[in-house]
């Protein structure tokens, strides 16, 4: 032990107290220091592990922010997976003038690659003191590559999403379109936004990796064929507009829907034209004689009439100052099939009166004709229902005047009369038969539905619907011609003609509705402009083209409607 001075001893005794062994103390301190260091290094190591784990997704996050510059949308495909709408990425060129070192040089280099840029304007914009300017939206990949190689500081690219509709106007009325910010403003595109995509856009999280395609019920091939025929029909009959739809009567799926004139969604300016509305859902019309399908179904279902009942149609029907005529008066009592095939207004009116005003109203309510029909499409219209529903209203509504409904709505009710009596809300999304059964509501007895199939078939064989009868597909159908109301009066020569066809009529799968707005009598129609001469033949052409596409097999061994009903009459006995 070294010699301590007295002073040192004093200090030691003051600091540590007397009789304390210094070496023990030193060991303890050393231990403490080791513990502290181990602790510190342990914390550092732990932090490193945590940091490494967190930074795993770092690169991914960066790419997300790059993707989300413009909002991505899910693809829209038809029932077979054909693309109806999709996003493509295109680079856009931007500059940050504050970061530019030499605007003149940048301007020279850029115009060398893109000669279509305006030199003076470009220079003035580059010399400005703004933080961010777009130089050109949607440049080609080749241009991007070349500009990238120029290596100008302060110039960069951002990837933007651009919506493209490869089929142009063919499906425009259903899928709608988007605005410049890729937000849906009409049709299914708007519906997609309503399903939560808009919120994703707001949060800036809508990247293409999160989104499943939206599969519609439309069949692109059938849609195109329908549109093609409707365009031809509109030209041929010089009509103001033509519209049509094909509905699967067992699932409620809309397989095709066209309202022409339509617009090209790639060119949004056309879309605002009011003549290009979707007439099948947004317009309401008096459907004319096709409404007799519902009247007859009602009378048969109520038990007030059978196929053998007769109704007096020998005289015109007088109601106050109104007189109900028949288009081709028979001047005798008619059976129910005769009323249907001759399209007798008087007969239909008497059938509705047999059920009564309240019964008629309740029936149409049940069939969904008095309430607004809502589908996925945001555009819909409220039916025009008379405020005071008296006997006269029942009389006119029985043959399709005085109640305006959306054609899709009428098609839904007509489908219910032939599919076994189930009212199925129509949809534009793919739906299975099981799902449809879940949604279906029984509105008619299945027996009534069988009678209606027979009547529709009979009408296509020898009634007003003969021009729509395509050999082999066993078409059934009903014509309808309504005079349009102009300034509160029925205009004699402004007609709205429509045709409802079901096929095959013995076990219907599809309903085809064709509607022409103000068709003119043309060569070959003998001066007529009624539905049997224009909407009917158009329906026939559509069916001939579309039925094979929809997997309907032509059959030639089917009995005539008259034999069919005879067979059923003996069966039930």
């Amino acid at each position, binding site marked *: 032990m070294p010699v301590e001075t007295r002073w040192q001893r004093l200090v030691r005794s003051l600091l540590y107290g007397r009789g304390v062994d210094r070496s023990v103390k030193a060991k303890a301190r050393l231990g403490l220091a080791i513990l502290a260091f181990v602790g510190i290094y342990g914390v550092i190591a732990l932090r490193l592990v945590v940091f490494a784990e967190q930074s795993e997704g770092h690169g991914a996050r960066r*790419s997300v922010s790059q993707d989300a510059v413009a909002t991505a949308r899910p693809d829209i495909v038809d029932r077979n997976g054909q693309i109806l709408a999709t996003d493509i990425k295109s680079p856009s060129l931007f500059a940050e003038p504050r970061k530019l070192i030499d605007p003149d040089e940048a301007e020279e280099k850029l115009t060398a690659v893109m000669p279509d840029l305006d030199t003076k304007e470009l220079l003035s914009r580059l010399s400005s003191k703004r933080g961010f300017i777009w130089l050109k939206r949607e440049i080609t990949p080749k241009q991007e590559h070349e500009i990238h190689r120029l290596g100008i500081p302060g110039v960069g690219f951002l990837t933007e999403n651009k919506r493209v509709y490869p*089929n142009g106007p063919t499906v425009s009325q259903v899928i709608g379109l988007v605005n410049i910010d890729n937000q849906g403003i009409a049709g299914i595109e708007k519906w997609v936004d309503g399903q939560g995509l808009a919120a994703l856009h707001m949060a800036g999280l809508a990247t293409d990796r999160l989104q499943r395609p939206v599969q519609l019920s439309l069949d692109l091939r059938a849609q195109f064929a329908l549109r093609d025929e409707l365009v031809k029909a509109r030209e041929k009959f010089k009509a103001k507009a033509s519209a049509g739809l094909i509905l699967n009567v067992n699932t409620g799926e809309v397989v095709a829907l066209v309202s022409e004139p339509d617009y090209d969604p790639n060119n949004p300016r056309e879309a605002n034209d009011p003549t290009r509305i979707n007439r099948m859902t947004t317009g309401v019309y008096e459907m004319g004689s096709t409404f007799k399908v519902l009247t007859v179904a009602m009378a048969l279902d109520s038990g007030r009439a059978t196929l053998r009942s007769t109704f007096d149609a020998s005289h015109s029907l007088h109601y106050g100052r109104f007189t109900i005529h028949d288009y081709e008066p028979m001047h005798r009592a008619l059976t129910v099939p005769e009323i249907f095939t001759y399209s007798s207004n008087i007969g239909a009116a008497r059938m509705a009166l047999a059920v009564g005003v309240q019964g008629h109203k309740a029936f149409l309510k049940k069939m969904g004709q008095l309430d607004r029909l809502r589908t996925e499409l945001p555009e819909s219209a409220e039916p025009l229902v008379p405020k005071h529903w008296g006997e006269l209203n029942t009389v006119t509504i029985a043959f399709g005047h005085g109640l305006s409904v959306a054609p899709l709505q009428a098609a839904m009710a007509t489908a219910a009369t032939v599919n076994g009596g189930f009212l199925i809300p129509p949809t534009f999304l793919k739906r299975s038969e099981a799902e449809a059964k879940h949604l279906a509501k029984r509105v008619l007895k299945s027996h009534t539905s069988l009678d209606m199939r027979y009547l529709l078939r009979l009408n296509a064989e020898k009634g007003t619907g003969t021009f729509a009868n395509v*050999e082999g597909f066993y078409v059934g159908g009903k014509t309808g011609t309504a005079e349009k109301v102009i300034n509160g009066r029925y205009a004699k020569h402004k007609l709205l003609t429509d045709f409802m066809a079901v096929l095959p009529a013995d076990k219907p799968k599809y309903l085809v509705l064709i509607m022409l707005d103000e068709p003119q009598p043309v060569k070959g129609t003998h001066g007529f402009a009624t539905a049997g001469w224009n909407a009917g033949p158009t329906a026939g052409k559509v069916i001939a083209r579309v039925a*094979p596409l929809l997997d309907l*097999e032509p059959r030639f061994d089917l009995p005539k409607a008259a034999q069919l009903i005879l067979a059923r009459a003996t069966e039930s006995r």
Partner: protein
Amino acid sequence: MRLLNILVIAALILAASFVYKIKFDSTLQAERGAKLRGELRHERNAIARLRAEWAKLDAPARIEGLAQRHLALQPVKSVQFGTFDKLPPRPAPPADLVGAMLKGAAAETTGSVPTPRARR
């Protein structure tokens, strides 16, 4: 004691160089990852563009236009569809195959004889 010190220093150098290597490798991997991600994005965008182009080329309106311009085809009529069970039964093969072949060969100086490969 000295040996221990040397050992510790050696271990330190070893550990440091090992850490450096790991760091270097991870940087390399991260760069590769970023590059692959970029390529993936690029490819995905290219696929989207090609799909859109395919859909455009495949559009029924375009196909019909082409068909009308270049083909003499007519729309199919419903009577032109048939089923397999409506086909007439397959005709029985001729009895004397070799004789028929010889006859055919004699009548025709050129051309090939179809080989009856199905039945031997």
